[in-house]
């Protein structure tokens, strides 16, 4: 049927029979396009795809690196923080110990000072008392002799005698005082 139709439509041409020029130029077109794609377009496309894959992989690697770096940094900071905390605790402890020590020292010093002041005061009082006793003894002795000379009318210029009298008087005075003190 096809042949009949084709014969009717075109007695001279059969579209199923290839003509030589048709084949030659068709093959040539094919070869040109094949080499064009093979040698130029597809290698470029492949290169691009490789580059793109590499870029994506590179970015992933970069991100990984950044992540690990950040993690390391965080660890370092945490370590530093912990160190700083322990350091601070140590310093606080030290300060507390130092404070206690200083307080104790100060207390001791104050006690010593107080003791020294007390001792000084006592020594001074003693010295003054001694001085008073000596001066009293001298003055009371001369006064008493003057008085007694006046009363007795005799001159107690003899020192030996006078001294003996004064000593006796004073001894009596002290004895009476002691008696009065004990009776009291």
């Amino acid at each position, binding site marked *: *049927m*096809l042949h009949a*139709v*084709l014969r*009717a*439509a*075109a007695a*001279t*041409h059969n*579209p*199923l*029979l*290839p*003509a*030589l*020029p*048709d*084949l*030659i*130029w*068709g*093959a040539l*077109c*094919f070869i*040109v*396009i*094949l080499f*064009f*794609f*093979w040698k*130029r*377009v*597809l290698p*470029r*496309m492949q*290169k*691009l795809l490789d*580059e*793109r894959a590499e*870029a994506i992989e590179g970015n992933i690697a970069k991100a990984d690196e950044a992540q690990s770096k950040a993690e390391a940094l965080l660890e370092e900071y945490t370590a530093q923080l912990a160190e700083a905390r322990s350091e601070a605790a140590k310093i606080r402890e030290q300060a507390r110990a130092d404070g206690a020590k200083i307080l104790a020292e100060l207390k001791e010093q104050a006690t010593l000072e107080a003791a020294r002041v007390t001792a000084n005061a006592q020594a001074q009082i003693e010295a003054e008392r001694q001085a008073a006793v000596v001066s009293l003894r001298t003055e009371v002795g001369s006064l008493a002799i003057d008085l007694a000379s006046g009363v007795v009318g005799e001159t107690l210029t003899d020192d030996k005698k006078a001294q003996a009298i004064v000593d006796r008087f004073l001894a009596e005075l002290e004895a009476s005082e002691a008696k009065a003190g004990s009776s009291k």
Partner: protein
Amino acid sequence: MLYAPKQEIALLSNAVNLLVHTATTDGGSFVGPSIDEFFPPVIFFAGTPFEINRIILIRFVAVAALVLVFWLGTRSMKLIPTRGQSIVEMGLDFVRVNIAEDLLGKKDGRRFLPLLTTIFFMVLFFNLTGVIPFLNIQGTSVIGVPLVLAVVAYGTFIYAGIKKSPAKFFKNALFPAGVPWFLYIIVTPIEFISAFILRPITLTLRLLMNMVVGHLLLVLFFTATQWFLFEAPGLFKVFGIGTVAFGFVFTLFEILVAVLQAYVFALLTAVYIQLAVAEEH
């Protein structure tokens, strides 16, 4: 596989019948397109094997357009593509991912990618010249290009099979697994005819007939429009509106067919290669 050429031959004869019918009903004043459409007069090198006619010139134009598009599209490729590069990449990726890698896997897909890409884009560009104003005929509507491509596809799948393992290739092709041995008496000749004789014929005819019929239909619609508008008597001129509408619709349809046939040709080539290198069916 067997039905395909028959179907297309039927399509062609229907179309031709239609034309003849149309041509005879309006009293001889309207002449429809004939098969001579595909055999225009020779322009250069008449009488040599290198005769060039209008259709071959159109093929050159299509090759030039293809080279230009892909040259510009891949001239300076960026990691982040520009708009033009995206389109070219999309086209190349379509063949690479949807045809080559899908059917052949990464390794074989890459091996046969240049061939599959060439087949797809060559058929596509040659088909599209059928709807481009002033070219108006498909570069694939004459048997040369479909036949060359079919022979290349045929040679390639045989080469791929023999390179991989000759014994396995012929065993898989001629003695399909899971068939009782006595059935091989029937199955093997059928498989032989279908694999080694019909495959290139169907590849050729499917593309050729689609393009021939597409072109004839478009010529018919537009010459009929011309005739109805300027030569038909009285109210028959109204039919011109109908024919021009059909012409427009079929132009769109031809674009679809152009893409589809390019895809089918490349896909079938990949399928044949895949069957040839397969371990087992």
